[in-house]
């Protein structure tokens, strides 16, 4: 099953864990160092769960709907 994720820009601390785990989905902005979702933001549910779990800023979540 695919799910859609989002990044809360307020709480992202720029650790880059997401970029390491899912380089197709997350990119750290060059200026701010804050994570951004690129593309559709769709991930298989198990991989989404992992990247959500690994984020130290607790900044990644599933989108509603």
């Amino acid at each position: 099953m695919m799910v859609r994720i989002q990044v809360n820009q307020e709480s992202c601390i720029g650790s880059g864990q997401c970029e390491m785990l899912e380089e197709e989905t997350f990119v750290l902005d060059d200026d701010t160092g804050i994570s951004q979702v690129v593309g559709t933001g769709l991930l298989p549910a198990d991989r989404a769960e992992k990247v959500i779990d690994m984020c130290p800023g607790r900044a990644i979540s599933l989108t509603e709907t």
Partner: protein
Amino acid sequence: MSTAPTEAPLSPNVTDASLYLDGIPYDRFAEMRATPGLVWHDYHDGGFWAVTRHADVRTMSRDAEVFSSAVGHTNLWDLEADALEARRSLIDTDSPDHTRLRRLVARAFTPKNIRRWEDTVRVITAELLDEFVEKGQGDFVAEVAAPLPIRVILTMLGVPVEDAGYLVELSNFLVEGTGETQSIPPDAFGNTTELRLLPFNSPASHALFEYGEKMGEMRRNDPQDDLVTSLVQAEAEDGDRLSGSEYRNLFHLLVFAGNETTRTALSHGAMALADHPDQWQRVLDDPSLIESATEEVLRWSSPVMHMRRTTTKEVELAGTTLGAGEKVVMWYSSANRDDAVFDDPFAFDVGRQDNAHFSFGGGGPHLCLGAYLARLEIIVLLEEMAKRKLHLTRLGEPVRAPSNFVHGVLSVDMAVEARA
């Protein structure tokens, strides 16, 4: 404030520094893990709740709103308010201060960006190893484990090579400040600040602050491609992004945080490889194991044995109700041996899978900034040792640091030999 349970199931003591002279008192931690709820632990200036199970350390690390780093202190003892303020660095802040400060330095340390230092790490490692091999034997800490991390971080900061010796010296005095005695007088390095206002109560902190300021001044006038430049530029862009005190303490933290810790991981790693030659042989036969071996070295060594938080409100953890303003201490050294998570936790297994160790913390916002730098240093050391087919043998017992905080090795004599 809640008080100690009246029928405490055990009266634990894991804070006596002398206990650690023979290694981590794992049996005491096993007993605490097996005790339901959290265990109350007495301590000089007020006791704390000991959190010893992996699952509970995890829960607590991820809830920084309730378990604060900014209140009291992140070490076992409280600091007076003025001292806490003067010494406050990234590690003792909560969001939003934490988020703002962390973002200033985060970029250089992401897993992706840290790779750009691989060649630097490799050159330094190769040089130290080759000198050690030439001697054939010596103290692994002094020969390899101590100089490697400090040389790397000074290069990243942009400290000129001719000053590196001075900063290594300061850093060694700071290490001393984490123990019981200091060998330098309070006014060393022209210090006039009260020691309790300085990190590690050490006059060497004053010298490090001064050096950081001098270097910041130089980089403000003449920017370079280094970490100090990126810090002073952050400061310049907008006066309140980084205050003078924040810059000083951040420079200090960057010089210091990765030294004793990485040195400890490398020293225990070398000892583990010497003590488990079958495991080292597995790595030599299959270098693709270096990544999992690195995680196992980290789990095995637990360089930072605990960090403390203070509750901001009443909360329940592991079935125990904590009041607001209570000390709670996460014991990573215990979580790393929790058999609820690790099969056969006392086996050193370079092929261990899903190694969810907490040596860099339990996964919240304070997750070690230098985690991927430390990993890189361990990986490169193992690679360079494997390339040379080096075998380490112990010539004696290690001299351990009398500390309940850093699992430090002061010295360990080893022989090194290249075998075809």
